[in-house]
């Protein structure tokens, strides 16, 4: 296989990992004020993602850095073209990261209230905007012959991309609720389970609409099959949630998000940034790629270290596998 294809798959994997992992901690971040009725419940909800959210976010840093190294043209076009959405995503992630670390550092209700609001906004904003960004990547954007983005911010807010944004939010909320049901006890667990059922229906409708539209735009047989698999996995997750089989429900949403992201990348390949102006201006995995030497060294290093990373990140989930109980207030 061409190394450019290998790296396209690697980038797709990194984004998949990112959305599967940060997807549930975004979900918890958007939900914990709604689900947690008092401080002990909210703290318990936040504690479920406490040990892992930072590590989850590194998948994004890795996706960015790997794109920079393996596809510099893609990185340059994407990041300069999607300037304002990325700026807002950064603001969201900054506010959220600080608030997650600081909320428990002062025993003061007003302080925690502010931090909680920051966590909610900081989880909602990136979830929404990543959906918008991915919608636009799949749909294509105006690129000139030099692969420069020549559109405005408004162009990025097209109906398809906005649907993508809403879909991401709804799916992550459901994913987060199911994660909470899996990781908490008692009342909180029951409420998370019920909430997942309610948001799951909305998420399912949005997901089907968004993925079908994406396939209509640029799907092929394989991507359509993967899309169907994603929808089936999501439905399976929701059924498991109804049956209160929390582990299976989480596996369901995890696979659904993973497969959905994969289906978008499969539909995109061999392009990485389609141009809506002229097919000749489209960035492809080949014309965006680094030299073969760079790709080769990076392949060797990644092949050695990525499994190691997955091993110790997996260990973290094992160490913190017990359900988090709500402290007696």
């Amino acid at each position, binding site marked *: 296989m061409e190394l450019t294809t290998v790296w396209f798959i690697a980038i797709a994997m990194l984004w998949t990992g990112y959305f599967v992992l940060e997807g549930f901690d975004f979900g918890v971040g958007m939900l914990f004020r709604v689900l947690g009725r008092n401080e002990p419940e909210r703290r318990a909800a936040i504690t479920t993602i406490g040990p892992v959210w930072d590590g989850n976010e590194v998948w994004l840093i890795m996706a960015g850095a790997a794109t920079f190294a393996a596809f510099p043209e893609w990185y340059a076009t994407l990041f300069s073209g999607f300037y304002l959405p990325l700026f807002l995503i950064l603001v969201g992630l900054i506010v959220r990261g600080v608030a997650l670390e600081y909320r428990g550092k002062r025993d003061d209700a007003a302080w925690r209230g502010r931090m909680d609001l920051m966590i909610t906004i900081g989880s909602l904003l990136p979830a929404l905007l990543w959906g918008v960004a991915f919608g636009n990547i799949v749909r294509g954007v105006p690129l000139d012959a030099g692969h420069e983005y020549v559109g405005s911010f408004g162009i990025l807010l097209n109906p398809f991309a906005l649907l993508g944004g809403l879909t991401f939010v709804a799916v992550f909320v459901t994913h987060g609720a199911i994660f909470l049901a899996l990781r908490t006890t008692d009342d909180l667990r029951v409420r998370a389970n019920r909430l997942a059922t309610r948001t799951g229906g909305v998420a399912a409708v949005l997901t089907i609409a968004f993925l079908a539209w994406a396939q209509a735009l640029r799907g092929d047989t394989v991507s359509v099959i993967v899309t169907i698999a994603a929808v089936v996995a999501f439905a399976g997750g929701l059924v498991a949630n109804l049956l209160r089989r929390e582990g299976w429900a989480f596996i369901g949403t995890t696979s659904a998000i993973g497969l959905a992201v994969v289906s978008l990348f499969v539909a995109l390949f061999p392009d990485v940034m389609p141009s809506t102006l002229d097919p000749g201006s489209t960035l492809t995995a080949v014309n965006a790629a680094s030299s073969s030497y760079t790709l080769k060294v990076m392949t060797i290093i990644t092949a050695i270290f990525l499994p190691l990373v997955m091993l110790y990140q997996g260990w973290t989930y094992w160490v913190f596998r017990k359900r988090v109980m*709500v402290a007696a207030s």
Partner: protein
Amino acid sequence: MDTLDLARWQFAITTVYHFFFVPVTISLVAITAGLQTAWYRTGKEKYLRLTKFYGKLFLINIAMGVVTGLVQEFQFGMNWSDYSRFVGDVFGAPLALEGLLAFFLESTFIGLWIFGWERLPKLVHLGCIWMVVLGTQLSAYFILAANSWMQNPVGFRYNAARGRAELTDLWAVLTNKVVLVTFPHTIFAAFMVGGAFVAGVAVWHLVRRPDTDRDVFRSALKIGASVVLVASVGVAISGDLQGKVMTEVQPMKMAAAEALYETEKPASFSVFTVGTLDGSKEIFSIKMPYLLSFLATGHFGGEVKGINSLQEAYEQLYGPGSYKPNIPLTYWTFRLMIGVGMASAAVALWLLWVTRRGRAPSHWLVWLAAPLPLLPLVANTFGWIFTETGRQPWLVFGLLPTASGVSPSTTSGEVITSLVGFTLLYGVLAIVETKLLLRTIRGGLAGTDDPPDTAPDQPDKPLSLAY
């Protein structure tokens, strides 16, 4: 201002701000790991309490370092897309290595350390913080390798057809002679910051509340001040080596550091100069003969090239244009870096002297406690401003002018939006962080000797390390 100036301001502001947290993180995690190791080995409770206290301060600090680091990675592509196109093949690799080898390690093991106190065996838990230490060191190495490549590009060839630099030897990039001297210099400088932080906080407690946890804070004072002293020796030695490498690969930067317009042999080091506004004529100065020759070349009689002759040489090499950085800025930041750094070492030495053999620190010492942690931090900042502005007008020395790296499609409106946005956000966060730090410092060791939570999966109390 046009997009270029705005993008440069944004890079300067976000980078200087980010680097307020980096040196504290690098050193404080290592000192915390050392304290925890001391507790593990000796079983003395004071080390455990110090581990928890400084560990909490470290966590408050690293949160800011992490989130501001995200901006750094994104803005290469956002504001400097032509730079990214030009260097991605080379520069991206160390950046990706930083993510893969360092960031995953740091972020994962920090979670295990924070939440694993009662859940992991003691030795495994201790190992977790050492993994974070390893992560911060690797991170520093890779990002400095990337930066050093911009100071002294090696291990690449220029591909004219694609108009970009392409990597030919990753090992050469990772063993660039600039990174080999810059890494120890940066790490030692970071340890001056962390040591001063530990010592400054301890002095404050000893003076303000002399009866509370006196022995514990005396230990902290000694540890912190000693770290500053040892690190300052390392900074001096590595800085001297760095000066010689810099003279070799970036002679203009050394000339600018000295505002040396004419080539001199031997050259003297000026401690202080008042010159005309453009810096080209001096009115008054204090000079130390032969010193610059030694700093630059290792010989007291060595020749140091002046700005004017280097300008001529560069014009021949690269075509017409100005190859001079902002001379007053490089001259003063170079001096302030050295001067403020030396001052912080002197303060640390003096602190050790006045508190020797159980002596109590006098009350007015508190005035030193506050600025002490800031001195080396300021020196670090000046060092970075010096080294980055001294490279101008180049983004990648000799290859890519700064003006050619900016994103062509980005509008000044977009850059203004993000510049104002980040600056405001960073300003607010600075207040929040400082307040929280001061509050936590004031709180002292209270709560660090609490018995551990017995129910292992209860969310921890707010005062402990977790949420």
